[in-house]
């Protein structure tokens, strides 16, 4: 079991009404894909936008297969609108 927090920003934070979501995952060594799946279940308002979102792990965009540790800084990067 792994516990970790995922930071939310912008419209995704607004949709959930929180700046971060605490997740409990069944895996011991988890991947970004597993975190995104758990997030989808834990925060239903993200359902529509999560497929076009990525995780940032320690402030770098990560791929689905990349590992995540509970000590990592994890953020959901989706619905960005800079420029």
């Amino acid at each position: 079991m792994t516990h970790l927090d995922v930071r939310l920003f912008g419209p995704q934070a607004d949709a959930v009404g929180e700046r971060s979501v605490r997740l409990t995952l069944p895996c011991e060594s988890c991947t970004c894909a597993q975190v995104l799946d758990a997030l989808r279940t834990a925060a239903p308002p993200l359902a529509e936008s999560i497929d076009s979102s990525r995780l940032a792990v320690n402030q770098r965009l990560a791929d689905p297969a990349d590992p995540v540790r509970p000590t990592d800084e994890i953020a959901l990067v989706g619905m960005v609108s800079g420029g």
Partner: protein
Amino acid sequence: MSANARIFDGPLDGIPAPTPHPAVGAVLVFEGRIRPTEAAQTITAIDYETYDPMAERMLGELARQALEKFGLLAVQALHSRGRVGVGQCSFRLWIASTHRREGLDAMDWFIDTLKRDVPIWKRPVFVESGAGATP
């Protein structure tokens, strides 16, 4: 050849542009400005939220990638954090190149990539209907 990026609090208006090196044949500047409507509603400003320091670091990485990928002479990317009012500038991309073609291509690529990957979010500030009219 130089690439740099900065995120500033508030609008970018008034921040001077770089002075191009004499070898530069073409300077291209793109400025994104706040328009008075967002999804057909009147707004007064946009609040920009940035994931720090990742947003600034990624802007810098894009600037370096653009430099290399398009063979540019210099790139500077600036973006606002926080509130930027209607008519003010929230993003500026400055590209110096030997010729025009690579500068235009780089500008297109940079802005597309920024809009897809860089952790910056905007939140429109709508006109408060009737605010202040109640006693």
